[in-house]
Structures are given as C-alpha cells and as structure tokens.
C-alpha cells in the first residue's frame, strides 16, 4: 500500500501530538522536551591547599560561546542555591596541578545539606600524583544526582583535600579548568 499523507488536524479528536517544542500535549511527550536548565561555574584563581572548602573565587561561566540555559544558580561564600526544585545532575570537575609533589590521595567532594546548615559529603572521587618528574596534572571528576525538594534549605558546596599541597587549577585566560556544572533533569 503506498504511503499516504494523513492530515492530522482533520477527522481526529483531541490534541495534535507535536514532538519538537510542542506546548499543548496531552500525554506521551514532554512539553518543550530536553533539559530546561543548565549552568556552569568555574574557579577563577588557582587554589594551593591541603584541605579546604571552596568558598571564594567562583564565577559563572559565560562568554566565548558558553551560556546558561534557563534560570541560573546563585552562589554565596561557596554555597550554591538552586533556582527551582527538581532532580539535578551536579558535576564537579577538579583539575589538579602539582609541582612535583607526591600525593597518594587528592579528593574532590560534593557536600549537600537539607537544612541549610549541616552538610553531608554525598559524593567523592579521588586521584593521586605519584610521579616526581616535573609538574604533573590529574583530575578528579565527581558526579552526583540530587533531589532538591526545597530551594531554601537544600544546597550544595564543594570541598577539596590532598595528602600534600597541591593546586586546584584556576582559569587561564578564556580557558576554564576546575568547573562546577548543574543540570536540571526533571521535576522532584
């Protein structure tokens, strides 16, 4: 049987399904489709430390083709507040530089609170630097999926620790190294 084009707007009751960007769907599709919020921040200065929460020198990653989709995160003293409730994927990409120090562990951690006061380490990843021939770099990406049920009390912040003094890399010109990404996956 030859393919026949069907005029979906005639002889059919209900709402016409539209998969791409529709706004009046009855079921089976998500209005608009895809992610509705993504935002990325970065460490603007390199941080030499053995252990610290990241409480300053955080900037929103904009310009040079970068941008924020939907509502942005807000940040104060390293504490990030979500723009709305929902499930969020959080990615902390710790770019680590060492001027030839050994470090058996270098840990990046996402810390989470549900009362805007007491934090819990919810996700951690570790790396190490063992080679002593000149400066060495490594990275410790951390991923967490957080259910944000209350934007006033559910917040995140980031911490970093190492066996020896290492450097969490800051930005270099337009190039970003250590970044913090937030993607809203869906409703809570």
């Amino acid at each position, binding site marked *: 049987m030859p393919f026949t084009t069907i005029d979906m707007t005639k002889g059919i009751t209900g709402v016409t399904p539209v998969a791409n960007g529709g706004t009046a769907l009855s079921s089976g599709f998500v209005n608009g489709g895809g992610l509705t919020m993504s935002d990325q921040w970065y460490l603007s200065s390199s941080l030499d430390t053995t252990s610290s*929460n990241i409480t300053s020198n955080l900037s929103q990653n904009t310009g040079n083709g970068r941008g924020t989709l939907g509502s942005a995160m807000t940040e104060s003293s390293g504490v990030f507040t979500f723009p709305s409730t929902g499930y969020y994927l959080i990615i902390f990409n710790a770019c680590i530089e060492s001027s030839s120090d050994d470090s058996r562990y270098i840990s990046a951690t996402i810390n989470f609170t549900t009362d805007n006061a007491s934090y819990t*380490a919810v996700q951690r990843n570790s790396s190490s630097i063992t080679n002593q021939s000149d400066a060495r770099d490594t990275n410790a990406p951390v991923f967490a999926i957080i259910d944000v049920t209350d934007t006033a009390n559910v917040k995140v912040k980031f911490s970093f620790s190492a066996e020896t*003094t290492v450097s969490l890399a800051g930005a270099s010109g337009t190039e970003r190294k250590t970044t913090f990404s937030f993607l809203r996956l869906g409703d809570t």
Partner: protein
Amino acid sequence: MADYKAIRIIHAIMAINPNAKVNVWDNDIDRIDWTIEYWDKTEKKDKTVTTTEISKSDILAKQKELQDQWDKDNA
C-alpha cells in the same frame, strides 16, 4: 628525580609551620587565607581553623631558601 620544581608560597609556609592550614590563591603572597573552612573527613563535618600568620618577609625568604636548595641538589 624531578627535573624541575617551583617552590610555591604554600611550600614555604608548610616548611615554616608543617601544621598550617591555609589557602593561597594564584600563588600570590598577598592572597593568603589564614582562616579556612574545610571538610573533616574523619569527623564528617565542616570545621574552621585559623593558622597564626607568618610575615611576608619570612615566607619569601623561606621560599628562596628552599628553591636555592632544590636547585643545588638537582643541578
């Protein structure tokens, strides 16, 4: 053996006070946090600690001393 090592500000601070807990931003002598907040992995909670400040002149002198020694040892 390392080919090159740049002694940074934090290396000099740790050489003077091995128990120091500080942050140094951009390896800048004028951007040192002597009071820091950190996540204590053992006690599983945030802590704030203050390290007694070391003078800039002492830090820079120690940095030069360490760099000279390292360069000499690895010449």
